[in-house]
């Protein structure tokens, strides 16, 4: 049965996964091009001043910054909007499988692809930056990207939760909470601004469970 759920989610997601994979490769290629530009045309002093001193690298890897959050949103929309359109989720809730398994496997499968993208981006960045810069810079940049990846993960889970919620008023409330939580991850403009990442990791880790609450409300017939 689990295979069948994954089959359904794959049918919805497959084109998006291909597009996202292509965008991920392109964003890394852009980062390579950008680093080469700094090295070739700006010289060593400027590199030190701006790339390291003014966190320029962090400011210019904008594709890497926003790709996970956009992917998270796109995956949630692609997976769950068709389910909620015309209350199609009723079909899924009537399947002979526990709701917990149904929802967590659906969300888990979507997140698996987002996580694959995040891992690819993380190691891709590590490879690309470490070709030019010393370990200290690589570590600073990579540590600074972790909140973006957490923000992408939070976006996926919260968007799924909001879409699966049956009433618009609750959707708006959840959206405000989601915005506040996700925006926190995109505030940093320089390296080393996040010291307590584990708190956000913990929050993101419990987010998948929120879909169970939305399902409970749907099954009660909340309008």
């Amino acid at each position: 049965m689990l295979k069948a759920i994954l089959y359904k989610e794959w049918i919805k997601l497959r084109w998006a996964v291909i597009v996202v994979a292509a965008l991920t490769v392109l964003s890394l290629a852009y980062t390579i091009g950008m680093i080469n530009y700094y090295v070739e045309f700006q010289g060593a002093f400027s590199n030190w001043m701006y790339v390291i001193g003014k966190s320029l690298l962090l400011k210019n890897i904008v594709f890497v910054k926003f790709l996970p959050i956009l992917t998270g949103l796109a995956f949630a929309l692609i997976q769950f909007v068709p389910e909620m359109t015309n209350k199609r989720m009723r079909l899924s809730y009537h399947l002979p499988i526990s709701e917990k398994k149904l929802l967590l496997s659906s969300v888990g499968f979507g997140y698996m692809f987002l996580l694959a993208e995040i891992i690819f981006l993380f190691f891709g960045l590590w490879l690309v930056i470490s070709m030019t810069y010393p370990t200290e810079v690589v570590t600073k940049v990579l540590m600074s990207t972790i909140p973006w990846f957490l923000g992408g993960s939070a976006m996926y889970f919260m968007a799924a939760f909001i879409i699966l919620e049956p009433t618009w008023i609750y959707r708006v409330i959840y959206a405000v909470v989601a915005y506040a939580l996700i925006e926190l991850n995109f505030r940093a403009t320089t390296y080393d601004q996040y010291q307590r990442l584990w708190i956000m990791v913990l929050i993101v880790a419990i987010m998948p469970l929120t879909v169970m609450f939305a399902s409970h409300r749907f099954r009660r017939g909340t309008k």
Partner: protein
Amino acid sequence: MEHVIECKNLTHYYGDNLVLNDLNLKVEKGRIFGILGKNGMGKTTTINILMGFLRPTSGQCLVLGEESHKLSPLTRQKIGLLHEGHLAYDFMTIKQVENFYARFFPEWKAEYYWDLIGKLGLKDNHKIRNMSCGQRSQVVLGLIFAQDPELLILDDYSMGLDPGYRALFIDYLQEYVREKNKTVFLTSHIIQDVEKVADDTIIMGYQKLLLKMPLTTLKKDFHRFEFRNANVRGVIKADDNIITNVEYYNDKITLYSFKPKADVIKHLKTLGITVSDLTEIPMSLEEAFIGLTGKY
């Protein structure tokens, strides 16, 4: 007798608005039940409760022995649902949707599905999204048949179907249900279809069940009488144990009753009305339904 559906003292409110009031209902195994009711009489609410998508305010609704809002996966396997509008995973193709559902049902009978789909003359990779409502109804019915459920709940199956697809739907449903001794609980706005397919009818009135009886009994025992008298307007009242409903139109009076003609004449006499021209007018199910529930 074994009951497939059993609702006890079912009451439901939407906010302060009472929709179902102490509804009691038993559905016996192996019969086709047609549920009829005018708009706003709680038909959809009852169906939603039965389907497990609405928790009643109070009372209990058992479907195959389990509370409808917390059916176990094993029990859900035995219930085939047709949702209003012939809901289907429209992002899937004909083949994909069969592949998907087959994995959930150990008794999956693909031949029923492909037999119905064969009639459509569409390719396996045809997307459900690109089908007409009639074509989609065949896909949904095929999936329910292949599931081989004990109980079929069909919510407004005729919605959006042209007469051809409606007839096809009814033909297949009748053949399948009779052959396999299934229980069906269906609603439709087309009363003629219900008349064609149902064994029993359930008629819902304002907040309550008006009647539940075999269709043949309703047709045999429920009568419509007419006579003309300009002077008795307002004298005859409905719901006085003899007269179920009464309609006045100029000097024409139409009476509906579960009692035979002789009893009605006797009753009219007690009201001081002597009639010599009381005529029984045969009724279709639709006319009986209107007779019971009123035109307004």
